């Protein structure tokens, strides 16, 4: 009688244990299914956020055509016409204040500063009035992140070659207007030639010959060395130099008021 009761008790315990094991396995499977669903949702949410964020910096898809190109050319010509240029310097060579602009033509933050930050207003006002001159100092950041240095040198020397005809800033502005994703290989001979052909008054044959100039290669190397020795780590870096010393805006894409604030410190 006792052994029969014990057998029943044992069977009951086994049944309970089996039920618990099944329940645990079922709960674990359900938890893992839910986890998988949440992971997929999270990946989708992050991908959407990245797509929106990357859209901030796409800056176009390379060479413009038609109406968009005409608008870009008009914008550049309107900004620069009437302002003296000499090599990589924009503005009155005797201006009391110099803003040295350490930049990289493929840098999206430089593009944002040059086209929609405080730069256009500075050019329209202080540079046009002869109070400030801007000197572009090439410093490889975004380009060297995705490409060999030769690409950086090639595009920068193309701009310096335009500078020999006092069109450096036209080239730089057109480059920023038609900048594509820094990870793509959009900078090629076709691209560089197209930018040159968009500059009114630039003699293409002279520009092409100047691109192989040893002097420009040396100038580029010297400017890069200067940036390194000054401890430049990112672009754009803007250094105002004037009678009262030096000043630097502390925002990545300085607004016009940021630039004016630095300017006042050195005037």
């Amino acid at each position, binding site marked *: 009688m006792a052994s029969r009761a014990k057998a029943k008790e044992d069977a009951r315990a086994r049944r309970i244990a089996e039920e*618990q094991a099944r329940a*645990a396995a079922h709960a674990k499977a359900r938890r893992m299914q839910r986890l998988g669903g*949440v992971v997929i949702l*999270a990946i989708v949410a992050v991908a959407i*956020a990245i797509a929106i964020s990357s859209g901030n910096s796409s800056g176009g898809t390379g060479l413009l055509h038609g109406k968009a190109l005409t608008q870009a050319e008009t914008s550049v010509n309107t900004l620069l016409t009437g302002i003296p240029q000499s090599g990589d310097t924009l503005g009155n060579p005797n201006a009391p204040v110099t803003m040295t602009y350490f930049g990289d033509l493929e840098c999206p*933050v430089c593009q944002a500063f040059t086209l929609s930050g405080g730069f256009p207003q500075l050019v329209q006002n202080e540079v046009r009035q002869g109070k400030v001159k801007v000197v572009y100092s090439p410093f490889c950041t975004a380009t060297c992140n995705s490409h060999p240095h030769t690409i950086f040198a090639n595009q920068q020397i193309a701009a310096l070659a335009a500078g020999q005809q006092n069109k450096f800033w036209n080239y730089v502005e057109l480059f920023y207007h038609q900048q594509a994703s820094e990870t793509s290989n959009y900078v090629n001979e076709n691209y560089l030639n197209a930018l040159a052909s968009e500059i009114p008054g630039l003699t293409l044959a002279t520009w092409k010959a100047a691109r192989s100039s040893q002097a420009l290669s040396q100038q580029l190397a010297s400017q890069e060395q200067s940036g390194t020795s000054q401890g430049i780590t990112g672009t754009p870096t803007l250094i105002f130099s004037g009678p009262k010393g030096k000043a630097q805006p*502390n925002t990545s894409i300085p607004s016009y008021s940021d630039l004016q604030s630095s300017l006042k410190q050195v005037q």
Partner: protein
Amino acid sequence: MSRLIAPRVLWRAMLVINVLAIVLTVYLTYIHYQGISPVCSLGQACAKVQSSTWSKLAGVPVALIGLLGYISILGSLLLLGDREETRLATLGMTLIGFGFSAYLTYRELFSIHLICEECVTSFVFVTLLLIGSGIRYVQGPPTVVPPGEPEPDPELDAADKPSARVTAAR
């Protein structure tokens, strides 16, 4: 299932990290709207990163998005009870926060070429919260108590609601 860490201890640690993250993002949001440069031992690096193209998402400062995210995580830890669904919600939110923070850190390193201390600190916080919420979800509630074994310590597992528990009391 053996536990890596006692649920109550884990929950408290996550609360502390979350509150610190909220304090940090309140500061970053405040200086963003006030136009103040952040405290930074790396010169202007923090200011440059926090005013870069990637400092906003669809026009909203990422500092504010981070703040709202951390408040939501805090809500899932405190307000809705400790159920499987809330643990999963915490894990989902920390996963999204981790993914986007990792992308922003990539941008800092490879696009802006500068590091912002506050941003890295926030990335560390969200990484710790992700690890915590992952452990919390995988460990699950105290759940199955094998026959003959004592019930879990109610003080230790106070964060786990009895409703989520499957006892052996049949």
